[in-house]
Every structure is written in C-alpha cells, then in structure tokens.
C-alpha cells in the first residue's frame, strides 16, 4: 500500500504530461502515440488497483518530516472567563467542556468540568495565566522533544498541576486506502479502461486527439486522487483537477451546443468550488487542521456549533452540485450528453460519484459525524432526485439526454440509501432494535448500487456512442431496427437496460432490492413504495428505448448501417460482463469487495481515526 497508493495518481499524471509533448511533436502519427500511452496507463492502473487488494489498509504520508503530536484534544470555551473560586478571589480561566479520548489532554488526566487557569513549559519556573484554548494548543504544538507542558487546573475548588509529554505523529498530506477506497479505485480503473478502449475507434472522427487523451488521463488522475486522499484541501484540489479536465472534454467537439453546455457546467461548478472552499476555511478555522482523521477526532468530542453547521451546509451544497442532486441538477442533462460518448460514460459513470457522492459520504460518515439533520437532508435530496430524474427522463427523445436524466434518478437511489443509513446510525439503539444490521445493510446497498450504476450507465452510454458512430443521430424517432443492423450493440444495450430497470438476474435488481429492504426495515414505508414506483417508471422508460431503438424495421435512411468496430465491442463486452457478474456472483464478491467498503463507512469517526493513525 505504501508504494501502490501514490502510483494510482502518478501513473495517469505521468501519462497526461507526456501525451501533449509526444503527441504534438509526433506529426501525422500523433494520435497513435497518444492512444498507446493512454492504453498502457489504464492497463497499469487496472493492475495496480487489483494489487491494492493484496495489501493491508494503511496511511501514507506525502511530504514533510517526522513531527510530533499536535492533538491537544481539549474542548472548551474559546477565551478565558471569570470563574468563581470558593474560599478565595475569583480567577480567570478556561472551563473544559470535553476531552478527546487518547489525546494529550486525556493522558495528562484532564477531565470535563476542570477549569484551566495557568500553564508553564518544561524550562519555565512560573505559571502563566491562560488566555484561550488556542493558546494552549499552540504551546502544545511547539513542544521540543522531551519537553513537557504543565497546566494548572481548578478541580473541586482545589488547584492541581497536570503534565503530559506530546505523542507521536507526522506532518504532510495523508493518503489513505481502506475498503471503500479499494472498491472505488477498482471501479474507476475498469470503467476508464473500457472508455479508452472504446475511444480507439470512436474518436477517429475528431481532430487533434493528443488534446483529448491528455484531459482524459487528467480526469482519471483527479478521480483517483480524490478517492485515495485523506486531507480535506487535497480532496478539493483533485476535485478541481478532475473538473477542469472534464470542462475541456465536454466541449471537445467545439460545436455551439457543446460549448454552451460546457460553459454552463463550468459556471455552476465554479460556484460549487467556492462553497466547498468556504466550508474548508470554516473547518480549518474551528479545528486548526486539515487532516480528515484529526478533524474526525475533534468531532468525536466537540458539540457541533452554528459555524460547523454552516460548513456542513456549504459542503452539502457544493458536493451536491458536483453530484447533480435535484435542486442543483441543472447542468447535468446538458453537459453529459454533449461530451463524446466515452467521456459521457466516464462523467456519468465515475465523476459524479467520485467528486460528489463519495466525498459527501466520506465527510458525513467518517469525518464530521452523522446527525439526524444531515441524514434527513440526504434522504430528501435522494428521494427528490429519484422522482424528478425519472419523470424528466420519460419524456425525452434524445437517447443520451434520456440516459443523463436516469443518472440523476439512479444517483438518487444511492444518496437515499446512504441517508437512511446515516439516519439509522444517528438514532442508534434509540431507533429500531436491529439498528446495526439495518445501518450496515443500507450503506452496503447504497455502495452496491453506486458500483452497479457505474457499470450499467457506462455500458448504456457506450452503446449509445456505438449507435451514434454508425448512424450519426441519437434521436430515437429517427432510429430503429438496430436489432437487425447492429446485433451485438443491441444485445449489450439490452443488458444495460435490463440492469438499470432492475430485472432479476442482473446487478441492478439486487442493489435495488437491498435498498428497498433497508428503507422499509428502517421504518420508511412510503419511501420504500416510492423506490419501487421509480424502478417501475425506469422500466417503462427503457421499454420505450427498446421499442424505438432495437425493435422494428430500420428506416430507409439507415439501410447501410453495419456493426461497429471490434474495440467498441470489446469495451462494451467488458462492462456487460461486469453487469452480469456483479449480479450473479453477489455471494462471492460480497465478502471481499462490498462488505469491507461498507464497513469503512459503518465504523464512523472512531474507526476512521484508528485506521489512519494505526491503532
């Protein structure tokens, strides 16, 4: 893991930096060279992501030097206040509200209810009056090795001196891989391999392909960077890397609609970034650190205050915009269909998950802590997305736009399941008796549907690309009879359609079933019924696709259409195999793939901190 995690970012970045240099100097063969580099890089990524399954979870610290603990672990009122001191004059001091277990303050023996009135460092002889908690934190962070910080506390009317030496920790940016990371990394590398394979034939219509493969690699690097990162600002940077590459890819055809969609996407995404960065600023101001595990450690002890709620609201708005959840979904139906088909597959299949839902889930479950308010917001957003997305999809005649609306709807399932999981965990034993099982089930079902959606939505977008490549149109009214003309493509499209509508042997059925079970078990009968209803609507919508795209006789204008080239078939074949495999082999991959991923969210704050700091 030590070496493998950075490789997940280094490989695609290296490829991306090489491609324009080699590509633009390569003359007429530029696209061949770019293709070769991109294909090699994605194959290497698939191998590395499989390799991560054979290594134990561990944190890697990127940059910096070995340092000392900066975790004082003391939660109290911001600045000193006047406290009554029975028997003598009142003193100024900082009342301690809570102490983080395992931190420096806890080892020193501080307890909630103490009042810190003074401090001195190892070499000082006199106690100094304490002004604020932050002052203590600063002093703790600057201790020399072996030096001790002594604090004088007022406990039960008596003064005592407590001392503690700082523990060990490290500086730099954390990279962290657990079950969830492994699952997502595998998903990203397989889908992007299929997309690059598909691009080999599909992109031959476009000009200057070095400028296509370079952003594609950057997008993969960005998504891998998000998933393996253990640092709040680092996540933001890689979200921006992936987004910046995707703007260029959405507008790659440089036609009016594509540029317009790209501009809309860019503006809304820039607003989302502003919100996210404000949230990060608030978190840094409150906690003084950006490391996710350290923030989680504070969050275990501190009561959330208004400022923290504001940060959470900013995160929900920002990452909700990136994930295109319903109040913020306006850009997705324009941006995803406008991109070239393999890019649509990656945007819908991967990007909204990695830079939206994954980050939101990680922050809610592992970093900031689950709470009823956030859980209800997630459930509302999920349910709304599900319903609104599917109703908008049913009326569409543009094949790719229809698929894009279904992306909103299907991601609604994921967010709903995660929201139900968060609600059950937030209520804890006070809620339903089997809260552990139900919470775990809801999280696992949500993550399973996330992976399934990556498989079948990418497959559907690739098959739409295959149709567009041969016929030049994606208007369902002008299409038809593809079952005769393009039998393999139609076969793959059918597998994708059956999976997304939740027909039994395929993966979509199992994940939707699990979601319905979890939602109903958690006591939300109405939401369960809604989930089933939306699934039925999805089936209807894809029956329409079946009717107008595959069945019937081809119109006269499409009489010369042939099956699409081999690389496209192979790419779709891989994803179709994934759709069937994820469904049929559920008992097999449950223990190795899905359960560890769900476990890492289910362990919440304590589990995450423990896993990062190693014990």
């Amino acid at each position, binding site marked *: 893991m030590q070496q493998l995690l950075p490789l997940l970012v280094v490989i695609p970045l*290296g490829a991306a930096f090489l491609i*324009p*240099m080699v590509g633009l100097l390569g003359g007429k063969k530029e696209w061949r060279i770019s293709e070769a580099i991109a294909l090699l890089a994605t194959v290497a990524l698939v191998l590395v992501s499989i390799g991560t399954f054979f290594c134990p979870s561990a944190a890697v610290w*990127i*940059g910096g030097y070995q340092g000392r603990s900066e975790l004082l672990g003391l939660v109290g009122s911001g600045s000193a206040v006047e406290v009554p001191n029975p028997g003598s004059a009142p003193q100024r001091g900082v009342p301690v509200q809570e102490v983080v277990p395992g931190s420096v303050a806890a080892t020193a023996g501080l307890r909630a209810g103490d009042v810190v009135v003074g401090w001195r460092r190892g070499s000082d002889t006199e106690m100094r009056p304490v002004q604020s908690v932050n002052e203590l934190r600063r002093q703790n962070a600057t201790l020399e090795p072996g030096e001790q910080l002594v604090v004088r506390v007022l406990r039960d009317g008596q003064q005592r001196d407590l001392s503690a030496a700082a523990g060990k920790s490290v500086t730099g940016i954390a*990279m962290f891989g657990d079950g969830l990371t492994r699952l997502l990394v595998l998903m990203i590398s397989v889908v992007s391999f299929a997309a690059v394979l598909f691009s080999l034939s599909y992109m031959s219509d476009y000009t200057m392909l070095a400028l296509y493969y370079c952003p594609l690699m950057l997008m993969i690097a960005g998504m891998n960077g998000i998933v393996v990162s253990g640092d709040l600002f680092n996540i933001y940077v890689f979200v921006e890397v992936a987004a910046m590459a995707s703007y260029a890819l959405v507008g790659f055809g440089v036609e009016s609609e594509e540029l317009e969609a790209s501009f809309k996407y860019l503006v809304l995404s820039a607003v989302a970034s502003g919100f996210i960065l404000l949230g990060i600023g608030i978190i840094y101001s409150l906690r003084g650190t950006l490391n996710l595990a350290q923030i989680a450690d504070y969050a275990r002890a501190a009561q959330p205050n208004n400022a923290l709620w504001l940060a959470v609201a900013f995160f929900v708005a920002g990452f909700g915009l990136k994930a295109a959840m319903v109040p913020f979904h306006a850009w997705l139906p324009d941006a995803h269909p406008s991109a070239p088909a393999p890019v649509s597959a990656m945007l819908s299949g991967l990007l909204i998950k990695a830079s939206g839902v994954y980050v939101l889930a990680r922050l809610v479950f592992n970093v900031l802590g689950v709470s009823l308010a956030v859980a209800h917001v997630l459930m509302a957003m999920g349910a709304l997305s599900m319903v609104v997305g599917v109703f908008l999809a049913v009326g569409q005649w543009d094949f790719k736009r229809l698929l894009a609306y279904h992306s909103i709807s299907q991601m609604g399932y994921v967010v709903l399941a995660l929201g139900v999981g968060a609600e059950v965990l937030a209520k804890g034993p006070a809620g339903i008796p089997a809260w552990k099982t139900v919470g775990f089930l809801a999280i696992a079902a949500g993550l399973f549907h996330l992976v399934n959606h990556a498989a079948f939505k990418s497959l559907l977008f690739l098959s739409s690309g295959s149709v567009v490549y041969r016929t030049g149109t994606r208007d369902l009214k002008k299409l038809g009879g593809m079952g005769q003309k393009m039998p393999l493509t139609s076969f793959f499209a059918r597998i994708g359609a059956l999976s997304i509508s939740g027909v039994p042997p395929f993966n979509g059925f199992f994940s939707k079933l699990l979601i319905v079970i979890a939602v109903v078990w958690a006591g939300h009968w109405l939401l369960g019924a809604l989930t089933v209803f939306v699934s039925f609507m999805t089936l209807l919508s894809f029956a329409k696709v079946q009717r107008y795209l595959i069945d019937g006789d081809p119109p006269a204008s499409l009489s010369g259409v042939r099956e699409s080239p081999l690389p496209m078939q192979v790419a779709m074949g891989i994803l179709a195999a994934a759709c069937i495999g994820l469904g049929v082999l559920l008992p097999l991959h449950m223990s190795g793939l899905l359960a560890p991923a769900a476990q890492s969210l289910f362990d919440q704050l304590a589990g995450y901190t423990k896993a990062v700091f190693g014990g």
Partner: protein
Amino acid sequence: MRGMTLIVKTITALLIGFILLFGFCVVLTGHLTPGGGFAGGVILAAALLLVVLAFGADALKERLGHNLAVVWESLGAIGFLAVGALGFIAGTFFAHFFAPKTGFVLFAAGSIPYLNVAVGLKVGAGLFGAFLMLAAFRETERAGREEGD
C-alpha cells in the same frame, strides 16, 4: 496582430531584459523571499506577452510557437512529477531524498528550488502558450470574417 507604435516598441525593447531577469530572480529565490515559482512564472509569461503586444504575434513565432510552448510546459510538469517521484528512492512519494541545507544560499532547503524552477517553467510557458493560441485564433477569425464579407 501588427504591433504598436515605435515608442512602445523601443520602451519594450529596453525593459524586456529587466522584466525577464526579475522573473527569473523571483523563481530562483522563492525559498528565501516572497514570490516563488508561480508568481515568477506569471511574470515571465507577462514579459513575453508584452513582446507580443508591442511587436505583434509573429515576432516570437519562430523561437516559441504555441506548440513549442506546450512542450516546455509538459517538461516543467514532468520535472515536478519527477522530483516528487524521486522520493520513492527514500521511501514514498515526495519523501526527502537528500539532506536539506540551511542558510541564505541559492540551493538550500532540499528540493524546494528545483520544484520552484519546474513550476516557473510550466506556468510561464503554459500561460504564454495559451495567450499565443488566443491571438492565433483571433487572426483566423478575422481572416474568416474578411473572406465572408
């Protein structure tokens, strides 16, 4: 782009050396004084941009067209990645692979000066290349419009 008047050209010719020197200075002493690779890179790009504005886009085309600018930019990016990847020798990505030197000298502070140079190269070449590309686009657009009229 035709360029500007003789006065602007003369002043630019006099100033350009100093601006470039200042840019290099900011890049190289980033670990000692305010500034660093990014600010220096933008200054370098702005200096080249001044040449283009004063003398027209053709003045630099032979020495630094926009394709060549991309190559320089990629080189800068690869350099940054390579310094990071050399850390694999010492353990992991971005680990310190040589002992840092202290004091007010040019090549102190571990890998920081090398990273500064890489960033400066990347940003300078990249921004300038983008500006050249914009200028070239304006040219083709204008030509297209004149044909159309």
